[in-house]
């Protein structure tokens, strides 16, 4: 097998005395979609944040497309990278937040243009044309000059997805992208993610939408208590879970 797009090995993370991740392993192949399920507090967000180094793992490592994130391998040690290098690595990893975190003082288009322009230093005209195409792709071509507060939650999240895509990331991470949305707006965001999956985008999606995971994910990962309890194809994990805890969780959410 070729190198996986995302590789997480033995990641531990504590906040003070609270051990949130207790040795997580995760492998995501290129072009694959991984759905991460698990009860609240099981460490799903923390895991995603470790992948793009928003949180620093205490132990273990993360590699994206074979490149170690946040560190450089030395002889017998890992050298921590400088902030500038970490920022450069992050540009290859798209992150979509539960609460969108769009920049409220910038228009939709400015939100999308910002990172390719100033993190990747690509030429303005090219970036803007691409940003407009991306907004069109998420169905918001007519909202380019609107500020986020004037958009619905679903529209804001779609702009956030376009913003993440604008960096042409190798992998997209979604942290509960529909949890902050009214039920009738969930569909429009899931549609966008579904299209991305069909286009072969590598994605890790933390979600509570079991139906969506079943339909779109190649792999479903169930986490509990800071560990991966089980993972496998949706048909296996969702329909014939091996572990008692997975079964209990699915019984509750379905």
């Amino acid at each position, binding site marked *: 097998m070729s190198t996986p797009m995302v590789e997480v090995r033995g990641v531990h993370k504590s906040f003070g005395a609270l051990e949130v991740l207790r040795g997580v392993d995760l492998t995501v192949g290129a072009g694959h979609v991984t759905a991460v399920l698990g009860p609240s507090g099981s460490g799903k967000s923390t895991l995603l944040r470790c992948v793009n180094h928003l949180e620093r793992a205490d132990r273990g490592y993360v590699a994206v497309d074979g490149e170690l994130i946040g560190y450089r391998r030395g002889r017998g040690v890992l050298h921590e990278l400088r902030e500038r290098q970490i920022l450069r690595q992050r*540009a290859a990893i798209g992150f979509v937040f539960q609460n969108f975190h769009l920049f409220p003082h910038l228009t939709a288009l400015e939100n999308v243009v910002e990172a390719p322009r100033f993190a990747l230093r690509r030429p303005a005209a090219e970036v803007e044309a691409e940003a407009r195409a991306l907004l069109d792709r998420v169905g918001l071509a007519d909202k380019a000059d609107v500020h986020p507060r004037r958009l619905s939650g679903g529209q804001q999240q779609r702009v956030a997805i376009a913003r993440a895509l604008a960096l042409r990331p190798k992998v997209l991470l979604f942290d509960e992208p529909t949890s902050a949305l009214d039920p009738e707006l969930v569909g429009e965001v899931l549609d966008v993610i579904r299209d991305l999956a069909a286009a072969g985008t590598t994605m890790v999606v933390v979600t509570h939408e079991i139906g969506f995971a079943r339909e779109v994910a190649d792999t479903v990962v169930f986490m509990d208590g800071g560990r991966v309890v089980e993972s496998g194809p949706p048909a296996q994990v969702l329909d014939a879970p091996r572990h008692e805890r997975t079964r209990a969780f699915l019984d509750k959410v379905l």
Partner: protein
Amino acid sequence: MSAPTTAEAAPPAGGGSDPVDLAGLPVRPAPHPLRWAAGAVVAVLAAMFLNMLVTNPAWKWDVVAEYMFAESILNALWLTVRLTVYGTVIGFAIGGVLALMRLSRSPLLAGVAWVYVWAFRSIPLIVQLLFWYNLAILYDRLSFGIPFGPAFVTFPTMELISPMTAAVLGLALHQAAYAAEIVRSGVLSVDQGQREAAAALGLPRGRQVRRIILPQAMRTIMPTAGNEVIGLFKGTSVVYVMALGELFYRVQVIYNRTGDVVPLLMVATLWYIVLTTLLSVAQFHVERHYAKGSVRVLPPTPLQRLRSAGEALARRTARGGPAPRGGTP
């Protein structure tokens, strides 16, 4: 208008009256008798106050008029304005840097910034000004060169630190301590998620601060900063201790000569009011600018409000009836 006679009746309960007609009815705004009463009281008080100012000859309005635009007063005013501008610009520049130092992860930078703020907030401005003014007593020559090593250039302190330099230095350094805290509170008021989103996008540090954090922090910074600038503008009057000819010093010189104390204080007061008003207007518009995107609809400017109120009144008197629903666009 074709309001049917049933319009005064209760809302359509069964199927008697037509709901479309009810929806088309004009709306009569709720009456506000207390507002009118309060308005009348304020008008009477204002009239009494004006009467008091105008009828008492001791105010010597002719003297006020004579000095209001006198060249020496205008020059002094210009100096006051310059001191304010320098103090604000340099003060907020240093203050901004101090705020970022204070928020940085480096304990050394944060510590230095904290000590600066502590020191300059502890020393009264007037003491600090006199200190800079008298620096020549402590060090009669200032040199620039290698620390503890040879000097490249040396100046007599008296020449380098003129009263004007001392005043600007004192005002700016003093202002910087307060500006640092204002900017810091502004930065802290920006949602943590904004910085995280900027970091997740891989934006360079400087760009994160300038493009994402500071513009949003301005919402919190502006009202307090406006206060500070206006405070500094009037606070420049303390530099009279250095015999610098700003507005307050100048009127003192004049009234010590002519004896017209009250009229000249009135000249200074009027100028302070005029410029403070201009500053307040500027502040309003800057705040409005930074509110962009933070509120769904910008509040109207006072001018727009006045105009729409005028239009509403005109319409009401013209029709002799209640204003139409929806108000002005």
